[in-house]
């Protein structure tokens, strides 16, 4: 009874609350001034998805549609065809990724047999229209060219690097050489 009375007149709860506040005054700051200060993102960060190329500049994508098949948000559309320059190679004639639908789950990167897809650390893409967030293959290749190191790091940290040279006769999948027609 007396204890309750003393608590009431001396506002001890406030003191207890302020103790936490005062303690935080002497701790290290965690808030970062985002646009001015950039955070260091982890290598496994799932940002915007990019298309990758081989070292010789040839795009990796073989248009196999597996990313489209696995995409849970149905954000990817692939139209495959015969490569116009390299005879009888399969490639994606059209590739669109709708980032308004994408849930950044990373399944497409896992599904890709030739490591043509990877996630980058870019996340700050915005647009005033929905169309602005529907990326074509060219845009995604440009993204990959821009953030090549990030995309490599993503694959490495997610244990998908061993399929790296699959287009060159190693790795899990094996693509025989391309015929020259008859």
């Amino acid at each position, binding site marked *: 009874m007396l204890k309750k009375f003393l608590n009431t007149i001396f506002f001890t709860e406030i003191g207890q609350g302020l103790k936490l506040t005062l303690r935080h005054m002497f701790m290290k700051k965690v808030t970062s001034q985002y646009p001015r200060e950039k955070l260091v993102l982890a290598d496994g960060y799932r940002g915007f998805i990019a298309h990758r190329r081989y070292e010789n500049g040839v795009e990796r994508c073989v248009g*196999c549609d597996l990313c489209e098949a696995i995409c849970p948000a149905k954000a990817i559309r692939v139209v495959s065809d015969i490569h116009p320059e390299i005879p009888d190679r399969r490639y994606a004639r059209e590739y669109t990724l709708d980032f308004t639908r994408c849930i950044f789950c990373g399944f497409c990167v896992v599904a890709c047999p030739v490591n043509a897809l990877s996630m980058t650390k870019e996340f700050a893409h915005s647009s005033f229209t929905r169309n602005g967030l529907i990326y074509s293959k060219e845009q995604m290749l440009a993204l990959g060219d821009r953030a090549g190191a990030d995309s490599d790091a993503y694959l490495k940290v997610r244990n998908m690097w061993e399929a790296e040279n699959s287009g060159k006769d190693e790795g899990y999948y094996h693509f025989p050489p391309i*015929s020259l027609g*008859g």
Partner: protein
Amino acid sequence: MVKLTVNGKEVEVSAGTTILHAAAAAGIPIPTFCYNPRMDPAGSCRICAVELEDSKRTVMGCITQVVEGMKVLTESPKVHEARKTNLELLLLHHPLDCPICDCGGECPLQNMSFSYGGADSRFESHRNDELEDMKSEVLVFNSNRCILCGKCVRVCDEIQDVHAIGFINRGFDTVIGPPLGKKLDCEFCGDCLEVCPTGAITDRFVRYQFRPWQMEKTETTCTSCGSGCRMIVDTESEAIVRISAREGLGPNEGSICVVGRFGYNAVQNKSRLESPHFKRAQRLVPGNWEEILPKVAAQLASISSSGEGRVAGLISSQLPIEDAFLFQRLMRQTLKSNFIDSDARQGLMNMAIPLVSATGSLRPLVDHEDIIAADMIVVLGADPAAESNITGLAIKKAVRKNKAALYLIHGHDVSISTRAREVIRLLPGSEESFLTMLREALSSGTTSLSPEGRQRFQGLGASPEAVDRLLSDLRASKRTVFITGRRFHRSDQGFGASMQLIRLMAERNMFASEGSGLFVLPESGNDLGVLMMGATAEWLPGLLDAANAEQRSVWETHWQTKLPSGGGGLREILAGIEAGEIRALVSFGVDPLTFLPDAAQIRKTLSKLELLVVVDMYQGPLADMAHYLLPAASPFERTGHVVSAEGFVQPLAPAMAPWGLALSESEIMLRLARHMGRALPFDDLASLSSEVFRIFPDLRPSTRNAPYFQGGTGEILLSVPRTQPPHKAQRESVLARVASFVKADLPATVSPASVSSSERPENSFVLTLSKSINHAGTRTLLDSNLMAIEGEGFLKVPRSWARKRKLKKGACVLVSTHHGRISLPIDPVAGLADGEVHYPLHFADARFMVLFPRHLSFNAQSGTQSGQAIDVTIEPIA
């Protein structure tokens, strides 16, 4: 009967059954790669391994026959181990290029690898890196992916009987392909593509353009010929990507010909009509339905109200029975005219009139199963493989499996000639004389031909020895099937020849004996159905005689109306337009300007019309003259039912959205009737279908077989439903009518042609038109795939003639008649009748038609256009 247990379940099957079938009977599936119920088992893939419980051995289910008391385990650790090891060995060489393989996603090997533990192998893998064989425009052979199950080789040998591909080399170097590393040259049926369990054979036309899981599948019926093949149309975003069959599905049991499998691009050709057009200042201008149909209806109503028979109508025989039924009702009841015709007349009427008067039915007494079981098959004026591919397969199977005696009576060698016991080459126009003489020789009772008879047959160009064999086989045969086709039906003597043939069959009592009968090959998907629905002037629905007032009254009471009498077919329609009596013509997909000679004269006649309405998919010569041109939906965009040559009534299903504003013909007719204020009592095509099936209960949908396989790894279906539908004609009712038909006097027989082949001048030939296996009609010329396979017409000339003049394939010759001349490339072939040359009808365009006489001639009894074989002189161009 043998008793055995499968997985502890007791089954009783007949002796000689394989374990695979016994297990299927018990409801237990066993996976297979190389097994196919239509072919002899090979036992080459070793995936159907099962364990025998008592002997602890694994045996192959597809080739091991059951024995009494056998205890079979289809799933056991040992079986699992055997299959897994087997898969490991198969995947030793198989490249894991599934992501870029067109088979990936529907690959039994892929599915099996998944269910038996992925692609990890205990062995050091050795991938083959052979280049793909891209010599053919149609198929790509990839020997790396091949597991050498041999299914493609067997389907080509046993089902298609074409022998175009085989095993090359031995051991590890074995590859599948056309012999001697040449370019693939075959019938391009694509059955090898269909049966291949891996991506070793892929389709080059849509290479890399699809993934199986993206496509929507629609089961529909092909309308290109009378076979009535059931097929699966794969579409992606409303565009047809490919067409495939299902093993066992439909009368075709999983085979389709080149036209069915690859001929899907014509309906998605850019030249298809998208919107209704009307004529303004001599030009066709696009409009819309709401604006155009009331105008058409108003004009039709005013013309038809001026009297009976002022409007004429034509309907294509590729349209379903519902459309044909509605068409004749619209013409007869609403527009009060019996001037109606179908293009089925050209191909079938010479046979249909005698057949209906003799048997009362257009449905055959025999089907493909009877053909396969027959001990004698006589093919008259037909190329079954080209005209009705599945009938051709049935004939090949009958000869191969049951050693049926095949006789081919035709002008030139066709693909089944090599299997024939005798090929009797007749010049066009001697069919009636031949059959008359044959009938007389048969009824004379003597065992061999008299010297005089031999001479008469020789006069027709037929070898008397061959005729002798034919006669003795005919006398001995128990199950005889006669097959007639295009050349027979379209011959100038087609009508008389059909009468003689039916009489011959009746005299030999073939209508009474089970398994014997006449099998007529129609030219397009629904010839029989269109005639049965009364879309020609001769017949009312149900093949009632339109000229007979008593039979007419059946429908008059049913429809509560007065039906017009008189009328006629194409001949009468053209005469009526010329005379100014017929003032309007409505054509549903028939273009007489493409198949009748002297288009200029017909154009002049048609220009007298006050109203010409053309409903078609494409713009053609007739469409250019139309006052109103309305876009029609293709068979891939609509519903309906078509009647196959076997008499099956099978549905069409919409696989793609209508092209532009196109509507189905029946929808156009219903709307027209509504705009005229004389609406017919049908809301849509579904109510029309149910009305047709209510009136004709024996025309309810029927088909044979269902898919043999289930799942993705080739497990055979638990029980194959073999339906017994009402597709054949009733033998009892046919017999009753045939008896009275035989008693009636036949028209006087024609004396045999006196022209002997030896009298023919050196460069003079008879030119006929033949059907190519790679095309159906002229529509398929719009198909890029089929044009890649056969893009040009070659005049087939005798090889000896060409060799003498040192002419090779592709050399041009000058073909001339009294009426005109044209230069054509030649293809020297063997096996032509003496003095005959032929040209594929699909390429017979206006340029070609100058060879024909300027006046039209029609067969007096059937109204079929005659004079389709002409005398020509052929000279090499210097």
